[in-house]
């Protein structure tokens, strides 16, 4: 059974790139373009993992992460934050918001795939 990943980014470029890099024979991919939509889809779809940008309109990735962690049904879903903000204070805020892991842009493909394998297991 395919693992389901929710991709969250307000950039169509990033969503397209993530969809191209992630093997669709292994993963079932859905998308959201802001934090608000991410929280709603996480509750409804119960993905196996969420890959989420930080700087987004309506609700940031940090805020969405907290909301997802606060919800009983989505509390344990692994969340990997993907962001240009690699400074220590931003990483710390990411972990304080409840993320499971953190990768910086531009995305390193092998690093992303390696983290997905870690959280979702090998195919």
């Amino acid at each position, binding site marked *: 059974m395919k693992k389901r990943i929710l991709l969250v980014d307000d950039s169509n*470029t990033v969503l397209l790139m993530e969809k*191209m890099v992630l093997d669709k024979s292994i993963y079932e991919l859905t998308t959201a373009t802001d934090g608000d939509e991410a929280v709603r889809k996480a509750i409804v779809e119960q993905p196996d993992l969420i890959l989420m940008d930080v700087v987004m309109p309506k609700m940031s990735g940090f805020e969405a992460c907290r909301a997802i962690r606060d919800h009983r049904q989505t509390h344990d879903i692994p969340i990997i934050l993907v962001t*240009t903000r690699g400074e220590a204070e931003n990483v710390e805020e990411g972990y304080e918001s409840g993320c499971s892991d953190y990768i910086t842009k531009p995305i390193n*493909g092998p690093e992303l795939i390696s983290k997905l394998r870690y959280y979702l297991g090998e195919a």
Partner: protein
Amino acid sequence: MMSNLLTAGVEEAVLRERVERLESENVRLADRLAEIEQQNVKLANLYVSLLQLHETLDRKVVVRAIKEVIVNLVGSEKMGIFEMTADGEAMRLVDSMGIDAQHYSVIHIGDGGLLGSAAARGELFISPAANDHLTAFIPLRMDGRIIAAIAVFGLLPQKGSLEPVDFELFDLLSTQGAMALYCSSASFRVGHA
């Protein structure tokens, strides 16, 4: 009994050697897999950039696509996108991120500054060090003439330096970015004629 022990010893040696060979092959295949995955990402970057540039004739969306490529795929949040003025004497800032837009609003070609000099040369310029002044100048060309340019001022902290895939993205922006901008501008003119 002695011969049994000898046979067991030989078998163990053969198995040990086979395990070592398999482990070595495993490492080689893992390295090769990482190479292929990296190549896949590179191709994905190029394909996605191309798709984003050409899926619209809306000039604002084309400019936004160029910015997204620089931010998300190259790794910079300090840039300016310029268009050449009709007389070819200057470049006018049409969009920017993370820089003083007022300061860079018009760049006169060959004005002696780093950007003006790069524009005068009209070629791809890459700074020897990823500094804030000018990391890269990417001229966008149509029919051999520069119609626009992208200036990148510094990279994200986690991005140490430009990589081979970035130069391929610059090549792509130089031609396909130019075409996308030109077509979107032409479409705009036709729509408002």
